[in-house]
C-alpha cells in the first residue's frame, strides 16, 4: 500500500493539483484500504477460526518472529545452498525453491501432491526456468531504457511478488517453529502472481530477435498447453487404483 501511495504521488508530481492535496488523497486512499483489510481480518477471525485470513500468522507458534536471524537463514536456505554456520530450518525433508517454484507452481503436482510428473520433467523445467532467469537479466540490461520508462509498472509488479513471498515465508517460518514443524508452503499459493510471471515472460520473449522470438513464444505456449493436459491425464490415470 505504501508503495502504491508513493508511486501515485510520484507519478502525479507534474499535475496542477497542489502537493498537499495529492498527499492527502493518497493518504486517504491508503487509510481506506488499511481499514478494509483490518475489517476483513477482524470479521474473518471472528467467524472462521483457524481458517481465518490471519489464521496462519496468528494461530501458529509465537516463537517464530522472535528469531529473526533464524528467519533470515531459513529464507536464504530456501533459495540457496547453506553458508557456513547456518542452522538448517526445523522440520523434516527438503523443501525449497525447486519444490515450490519448479515442481508445484510452474510444472504442477496434483491430488494433494500425490500425483506428480516424472522427475525428468521437473529437472527439465528447472533448467528452462534457470535459463529464463539469465535471459531476463540480459533483457533488462539490454532494454533498460524501456524498463526505466515503465519503472512505476515494474515496481507494482515487483511489489506484488515480493510482498506475497514475504508474507508466505513469514507464515511458513511460524509454522516451522510450531510443535509439528510443518511445511506450510504449496505452489497454489503463488497463483496470484501468475500475471506477473506472464508479463515477465512476455517481456523476455519480446526482447529477442524475430525468429527466436516466434519460436520461443510458440514453444512456451505449447509447453504450457502440454503440461496442462498432461496434469489432467496423470490425475485421471490415478483413478486406475
Amino acid at each position: 500500500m505504501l508503495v502504491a501511495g508513493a508511486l501515485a504521488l510520484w507519478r502525479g508530481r507534474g499535475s496542477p493539483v497542489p502537493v498537499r492535496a495529492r498527499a492527502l488523497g493518497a493518504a486517504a486512499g491508503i487509510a481506506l484500504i488499511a481499514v478494509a483489510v483490518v475489517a476483513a481480518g477482524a470479521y474473518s477471525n471472528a467467524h472462521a477460526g483457524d481458517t481465518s485470513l490471519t489464521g496462519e500468522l496468528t494461530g501458529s507458534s509465537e516463537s517464530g518472529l522472535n528469531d529473526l536471524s533464524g528467519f533470515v537463514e531459513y529464507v536464504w536456505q530456501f533459495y540457496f545452498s547453506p553458508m557456513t554456520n547456518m542452522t538448517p530450518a526445523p522440520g523434516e525433508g527438503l523443501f525449497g525453491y525447486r519444490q515450490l517454484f519448479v515442481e508445484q507452481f510452474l510444472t504442477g503436482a496434483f491430488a494433494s501432491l500425490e500425483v506428480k510428473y516424472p522427475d525428468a520433467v521437473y529437472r527439465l523445467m528447472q533448467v528452462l526456468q534457470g535459463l529464463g532467469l539469465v535471459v531476463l537479466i540480459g533483457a533488462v540490461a539490454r532494454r533498460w531504457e524501456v524498463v526505466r520508462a515503465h519503472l512505476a509498472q515494474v515496481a507494482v509488479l515487483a511489489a506484488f511478488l515480493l510482498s506475497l513471498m514475504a508474507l508466505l515465508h513469514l507464515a511458513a517460518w511460524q509454522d516451522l517453529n510450531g510443535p509439528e514443524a510443518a511445511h506450510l508452503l504449496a505452489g497454489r499459493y503463488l497463483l496470484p502472481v501468475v500475471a506477473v510471471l506472464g508479463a515477465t515472460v512476455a517481456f523476455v520473449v519480446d526482447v529477442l530477435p524475430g525468429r527466436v522470438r516466434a519460436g520461443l513464444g510458440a514453444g512456451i505456449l505449447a509447453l504450457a498447453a502440454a503440461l496442462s493436459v498432461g496434469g489432467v491425464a496423470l490425475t485421471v490415470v490415478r483413478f486406475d487404483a
Partner: protein
Amino acid sequence: MRRVAIVVMAAVLLVAALALGRLAVRDRPALEFVATPPPILEATPIELRRGAAACQQDVVLTPRSRVIRTWSGSPTPDVPRLRVTARADGWSTTALSPERTDLPGGGADGVYDTRIEPPPREVLATVCVQSAEPGRAAILAGSEEPRVKTRSPTRVDGREIDARMGLAVLTGGPRSPLSHAREVLERAAAFWPAPAGWLSLGLLLAVVAVGVPAAAVYAVLRSLREETGE
C-alpha cells in the same frame, strides 16, 4: 517466423502426445482396491518381531483378487519373506511372499506382492501380515499422515497402533489404463451428481485434450498474423 513457430509447436506437442500415449498404453499394476494407501510423504515403520502380526479388518476381496500388496519399511533391501493370511466367514487362505526377495514384488524393491487364492465370493476379510522367517523381524511401511485414510485401524497382536499399514489388492498381471478406460472414468466420476457420469467426464477430457493445445496454436498464429500485418 510463422514456419519457425509452427515447427516448434508441432515438435513440443508431438513429444507431449507421445508421452500421453505411453501413459495410456503402458502396463500398470492392476489395482483392484486400496484398503490403506501407502505413505505419501513420510513413512512410519511398523516392526513385526518374531510371531507378531499386523492386521487390518474389512478388506474387500473378490474372486478377482489375486495379490495382496504391502510396502516394506526396511531401510535396507535385505528383507525377510512375509506370510499373509486372509480370513472371512467360512473362508481363509495363507500365502508366502515371493521366494526371491530381490525380484520385483519380493520386498527388496520396497513392495511385497503376495499371491493368494481368491475367495469364491466377495468378502470383507481380515488380512494379517507377519514375518515368515523365524528370528528375522519384518519392517512394513505405515503412515500416520492425516491424508492417509483407512476403513479400519491397524492392529499388531490385537493392539491398535497409530500407524496405518499400507495395503492394496491387485487382480493379478499388469494392464494398461486404456484397456479399462471406462472403469477408470467411472471411478473418477463416482461422486459426480446425475446425470453427469463417466461419459460426460470422458467427453470433457477429450475437449480439454484437443481444445487446450488448439487454443495455444490459435493464439500463436493469430499474434504472428497481427505482428506481420497479414
